[in-house]
C-alpha cells in the first residue's frame, strides 16, 4: 500500500513548513486547529520555540466551532490579540480541520483584515502535504504581499531564501553567514535572525541564494518584480574524506546537490534522491523522487551503492545494506538539530 508507513514516521508537514517561515517575521500566526497541530509544531517541528519568542497560537477550535463554521469567533479571538500587541500583520495557517469542513480561508483573510486593520495572509495548508510545500507557499505569499517597493540595490548584499531549521537543522543564521562572508559584505537570511523589515527591503539585495527548493518560487517572483538574480546552492555542507564509489544522498534537493559536488571532487559517482520536492531544472539524470518506503528499498536494492548519506531515521529501511552509512541529519525527517 502506497500510504502505509511500516518503518518511517511521518515527515514534517506543510503547516509546520509555513510556520517555520513565519516564525521570526513578527506577525501573529494562528494555526487553525484544535490544539494538536500547534502542539506538533511548537513541541517538535519548531526548535526555536524554546529559544526565541514568537506570537504563534492555536485557534483552539472545538467540534461545534468546526461544525457550525464559527469563523467570526476565530476572527474575534485574533482581533483580541492584535489589540494587545503591535504586530505588523496576521497569518492564518490551515490544518486538516478547516480542510475537512472546507473553510474559506480567503474569506477568513478578508474578515481578519477588516476587523483588525492589519494585512493578513491565509495559507491553505492542510497537514497532508510535506513541509516544503508549506514553506514555498509562505515564502511566496510573504514576498508577494510585503516586498513591494523597488529600492536601490546595495552592492554586496546577499539575500538567502530557504534558511529554516527544517531545511538546515540550524536555529540561527551564524553558520550560513560565516560560510558566505568572504564573498558578501551583508548577508540576510530571510526569516532566520531577521524579520518582516528585511522582507520589505528584499529589492535591496544584489543577489539571492536559494538553499532549498521551497524558496525557488519566491525567488522567481523577486526576479520578475525587481530583476534580482538568484542561484541555487547550499553553503554549509561538509563531507568526510575517503568516500569512494557509488554514493546515494537522501536529503532536500539543494543540500543533496551541494553534497554531490563535494563528493564528485573526491571521484564519487553520486545519485541524489529525496521524498521532498525534486525540481526538474536542478535534477540530474538518475536523480530520484521517492514517494513511498518501497521506492527507497528498491533503489537501495538495485542501485549497487557503496555508501549512503541520509538521516538516521532512514536506517530502518536500509537493513541488509552492506555499504557504508553516513548519518546526515535532516530536521524535517528525524527532528534532530545538528
Amino acid at each position: 500500500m502506497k500510504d502505509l508507513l511500516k518503518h518511517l514516521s511521518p515527515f514534517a508537514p506543510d503547516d509546520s513548513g509555513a510556520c517555520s517561515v513565519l516564525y521570526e517575521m513578527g506577525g501573529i500566526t494562528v494555526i487553525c486547529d484544535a490544539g494538536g497541530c500547534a502542539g506538533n509544531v511548537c513541541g517538535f517541528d519548531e526548535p526555536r520555540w524554546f529559544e526565541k519568542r514568537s506570537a504563534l497560537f492555536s485557534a483552539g477550535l472545538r467540534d461545534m466551532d468546526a461544525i457550525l463554521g464559527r469563523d467570526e469567533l476565530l476572527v474575534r479571538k485574533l482581533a483580541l490579540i492584535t489589540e494587545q500587541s503591535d504586530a505588523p500583520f496576521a497569518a492564518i495557517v490551515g490544518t486538516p480541520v478547516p480542510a475537512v469542513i472546507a473553510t474559506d480561508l480567503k474569506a477568513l483573510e478578508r474578515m481578519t483584515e477588516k476587523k483588525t486593520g492589519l494585512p493578513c495572509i491565509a495559507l491553505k495548508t492542510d497537514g497532508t502535504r510535506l513541509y516544503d510545500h508549506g514553506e514555498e507557499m509562505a515564502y511566496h505569499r510573504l514576498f508577494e504581499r510585503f516586498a513591494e517597493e523597488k529600492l536601490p540595490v546595495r552592492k554586496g548584499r546577499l539575500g538567502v531564501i530557504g534558511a529554516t531549521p527544517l531545511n538546515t537543522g540550524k536555529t540561527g543564521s551564524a553558520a550560513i553567514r560565516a560560510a558566505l562572508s568572504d564573498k558578501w559584505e551583508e548577508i540576510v537570511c530571510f526569516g532566520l535572525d531577521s524579520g518582516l523589515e528585511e522582507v520589505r527591503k528584499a529589492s535591496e539585495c544584489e543577489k539571492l541564494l536559494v538553499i532549498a527548493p521551497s524558496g525557488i518560487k519566491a525567488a522567481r517572483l523577486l526576479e520578475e518584480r525587481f530583476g534580482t538574480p538568484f542561484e541555487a546552492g547550499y553553503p554549509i555542507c561538509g563531507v568526510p574524506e575517503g568516500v569512494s564509489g557509488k554514493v546515494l544522498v537522501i536529503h532536500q534537493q539543494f543540500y543533496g546537490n551541494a553534497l554531490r559536488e563535494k563528493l564528485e571532487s573526491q571521484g564519487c559517482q553520486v545519485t541524489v534522491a529525496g521524498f521532498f520536492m525534486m525540481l526538474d531544472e536542478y535534477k540530474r539524470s538518475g536523480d530520484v523522487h521517492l514517494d513511498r518506503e518501497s521506492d527507497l528499498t528498491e533503489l537501495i536494492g538495485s542501485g549497487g551503492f557503496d555508501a549512503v548519506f541520509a538521516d538516521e531515521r532512514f536506517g530502518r529501511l536500509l537493513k541488509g545494506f552492506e555499504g557504508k552509512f553516513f548519518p546526515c541529519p535532516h530536521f524535517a525527517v528525524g527532528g534532530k538539530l545538528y
Partner: protein
Amino acid sequence: MAEAFYITAKGLAENGFEKLPRELDSTKHLIYSSPATLDFNSPGAKGFGVKRAGLVIPGSVMLLIAPGCCGRNTALLSELGYDERFFYLLLDDTDIVTGRYVRKIPEACAGLLAELDYTPSVIMLCVTCVDALLGTDMERVCRACFEQTGVKAAPAYMYALTREKRLPPMGLVRKSVYSLLEPQKRYSNECNILGFFSALDDGCEIYPMLENAGIKKVREIGRCKDFGEYAAMSRANFSIVLNSEARAAAQDMQERLGIPFIELTRMYRADKIENQYRLLGQAIGAELDCSAYRAAAEEKIKAFRKKHGALTFAVGESLNADSFELSLALTEYGFRVAEIYGTVGERNFFYVRKLAEVSPETRIYSNLSPTMMNYSPAPEIDAAIGADACYYHTGKAGVWFNGEEQPFGFRGLDMLFEGLDKALDEREEKK
C-alpha cells in the same frame, strides 16, 4: 503584547465560576502553546498521550490513520522504544474530504501484520479530528479489520476537537484499553486500580493496607507484563478508580464484566487522604488503618519545614496533582503559594474558594493565555513544583513531580517533600 494576566484567588472566588475572566476561559481566546505545557496542549504530544496510552495493552500495536501532521511527533516516542509498534496510514487531501480511506483500513492492518513476526494482541486504530468531523463509525471499522485479519482491533480516539467534552480523548482511550477484557469468574480477594497508565509508586501504603484487608492481588495495567496478566484484570471483585478520566472505563467494566468500582481522588491534604481511606474501608467492608502512615508523613513535612523554613512556592499544572488542591495543602502545611499556573474548572473551583480563605493573594495564571508569552518570574519564589512552574522559574529549586511512578495517598506526600528536599539541597550546594 500585554503583560501576563493573573487574578488573585480572592478576586476569582468573589467573581464566581460563572464570571471567569476571559483570559482564564480557553474558549474565548487563542491558545498559547507555552513551552512549559506542550504535553497539556496536545492529546498526542508527550507523556501518556492518546498514542502511547493506546499501546499500554501488552503485545499491542497501533495504526495511526491520519494526515502526516498528526503523527509527526510520534518520533518522540521512538526514544522510548515504541518504533516497532507504530504504523501509519497517511491520508491525502482527497481522503480527508471524501473519507474513502476508511475502506483501506482493513487492508492496512493486513499489511502491517505481514511485517511482524508475531501476532499482536490487538491493533489499536488511532483516529484524529478528521474522523471526529466525518463521524467515522470506528466500531464497525474495527469489526471489519477483525474479519479480514483475525486479530482484534480497538479504537483510540485522538480527538483534540472534543477535549472539553463529557468524555474527552483521555477518557475514551481509557475505555478502549480495558475494552478487550472478557467476563470470567471473579475472586473476592482480587481488585484493580484504574486511572493511570503507569503503576502507583511501589511504596504506596494502599498496597499493604489492602493486603491487610484480605485483598491478595491488586492489578494495574501499568504492571501487566503480558496479555495474560492484562486479561486477568476481569477476575477482580472490584476496581478502585483514582482518576476521574477512568470513570467511563470503570462504568463500562461494571456493565460488561459486573465489576463495581469505588472512586477516590488523588489529594495532598492529610485529613482528606485519611478520610478517603476510611470511606474506602467502609465500601469494601474492612477497616483501613492509615494512622501510622499519616503520622509519618506529617512528621516528614514538619522536619522539612524546620529545615527549609516557610517557603514560597509556584505551583504548575504539568504535574501529578490538581494544582489548586496541592496549593491548598501546601498552604495548610504552613507554606506560601504565591503563584499557580492552572486551568480553572467547575470541579476544582471548590479549591479556589478554599484557597481564597487562607491565601487570598495567591496569583492565578492560565498557561493557555496568549499573555503568558510575556510572563516574568516573580523573585519571591523559593521553589517551583510542576514541569511548567520549573520552566518559568529556571534557576530556582524545583521538582517536576510528573514522573511515571504515580504518587498517591501519604506516599504521594513523601514523594513530593523528598523531591523538594533534594532539589533545595542541590540548589544550596550550587550556591
